[in-house]
């Protein structure tokens, strides 16, 4: 089972769900509304181990051991009924904390693991991306807070686990190695890096919340490969 979590307005998520289904994959799409409306949300941590279970109102159960892979596209949570704005904010914080713990506790790959500040995964500032990329040996663009540098000839590379996918132009094997390291370092096993080819393939930016449809069938293949390889290892 590949579980996809995200909003019904997330066209990229829906595209991926349809693509995986066409490839014969067993999938489950879960909406944020369904999670916060769960009849039972349980996440336990102790010295013996970690376990979780989420039972939705329609009877589906997301047990910790069930998914082979989770695509996490949570962006925001639906508001919960509350008596005041302060209470509503508190409820939102508590749900975020619970969801981060739940997704982080799953034994299967989660693309991408959430952070408390960003449920869909790491959100780095552009200079932070540049700094980490440069430290790993990738030639980079410059940046200023006064306005983003233009990317004259963009070339995108998706990273899915250990797989790099060149969308339009082939990046070098060295660049692929560096991107895999970057992905592991920032905690985003699914990300899209953008280079500027105009000045010799300089790393310009990246996102851990990429437009999935841009990845096309190669992205679908890579996700299936990741889900399958982890299942066989397990």
């Amino acid at each position: 089972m590949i579980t996809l979590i995200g909003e019904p307005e997330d066209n990229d998520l829906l595209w991926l769900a349809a693509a995986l289904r066409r490839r014969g994959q067993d999938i489950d799409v879960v909406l944020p509304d369904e999670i916060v409306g769960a009849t039972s949300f349980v996440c336990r941590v102790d010295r013996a181990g970690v376990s979780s279970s989420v039972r939705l109102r329609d009877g589906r159960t997301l047990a910790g051991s069930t998914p082979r892979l989770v695509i996490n596209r949570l962006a925001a949570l639906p508001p919960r009924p509350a008596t005041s704005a302060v209470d509503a904010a508190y409820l939102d914080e508590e749900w975020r904390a619970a969801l981060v713990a739940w997704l982080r506790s799953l034994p299967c790959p989660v693309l991408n693991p959430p952070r408390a500040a960003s449920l869909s995964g790491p959100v780095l500032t552009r200079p932070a991306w540049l700094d980490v990329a440069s430290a790993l040996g990738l030639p980079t663009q410059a940046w200023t807070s006064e306005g983003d540098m233009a990317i004259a000839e963009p070339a995108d590379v998706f990273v899915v686990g250990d797989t790099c996918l060149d969308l339009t132009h082939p990046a070098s094997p060295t660049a692929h190695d560096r991107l895999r390291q970057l992905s592991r370092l920032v905690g985003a096993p699914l990300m899209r890096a953008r280079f500027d080819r105009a000045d010799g393939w300089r790393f310009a930016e990246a996102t851990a919340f990429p437009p999935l449809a841009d990845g096309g069938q190669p992205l679908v293949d890579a996700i299936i490969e990741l889900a399958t390889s982890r299942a066989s290892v397990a």
Partner: protein
Amino acid sequence: MSGFALVLGLPNEPPLAAVIRELVKMAMPHVVVDQRHLVSGDARSWWTPDDGAGGVISVDGVEIPLGDVTGVYTRLTGWSQLPEVAGSPDRLAHAGRLHHALEGWMESTGARVINRTSANDSNNSKPYQALIIRDHFDVPATLVTNDADAVLAFRDEFPRIIYKSASGERSIVTPFTDADLDRLPLLASAPVQFQEFVSGLDVRVHVVGPDVFASAVESSAVDYRYDASGQARITACQVPYDVAAGCVALTRRLGLELSGIDLRFADDGRVVCFEVNPSPAYIVYEDETGQPIAAAIARRLG
């Protein structure tokens, strides 16, 4: 301007004020930027492949080159709440831009930052943080749930259980008693964090880089931070070497330079860790014990 330490925040706030005093005592070159004045000034930052992160803060007519900063102690508060931006969308937008520029610099600079915003993240989900802590210390059995049956089953496992917030929102650790049974339907709103009650001695450990400062807290309250009896006592203590090393390793693993770690030396022999606080109000412990925590922070900025 040659290398200097940078202090960001509200200078009268005790943790910041203490570090500023130590920087003065050490005669360490430093600049203090009052956040309330900052929002009326400006900040620009940049990153270049040759020189890395750089920037300039302009405040009160003075330009501060960020490329010369050796270390930053930041306790910037939520800028949108500052009275200086209240009622003015333009000032609010301006404050947002300059804090964004500062954030960009702090997240990419090679200077020592105490602490980077990105490193504070785990503290906003205590059960997530526990997943990391358990690689270094014992953690109390923790259940985050909206399921009343799960709570009752958990309670049956332990002599006593408590509940508290799972997020970074401060809450008072409270024993779960029969009086709370009627409130269990409120779980429908959001999961609550329950934990086994661990009886023992509270020890707060402050880590500053490689330095460890441990304080024992004696209190009859379940949550000593809210001990209204006035009987709570904080005294300096030593912790075993492996515990100190574990605290340093855990702090480093979380990407922090400074942390306040809540341990309990349990009656059953365990050393249990509840939380790692990335922005500890260490000054209470320094005032009670004389431990030179502010001085240690100041030294790390040079």
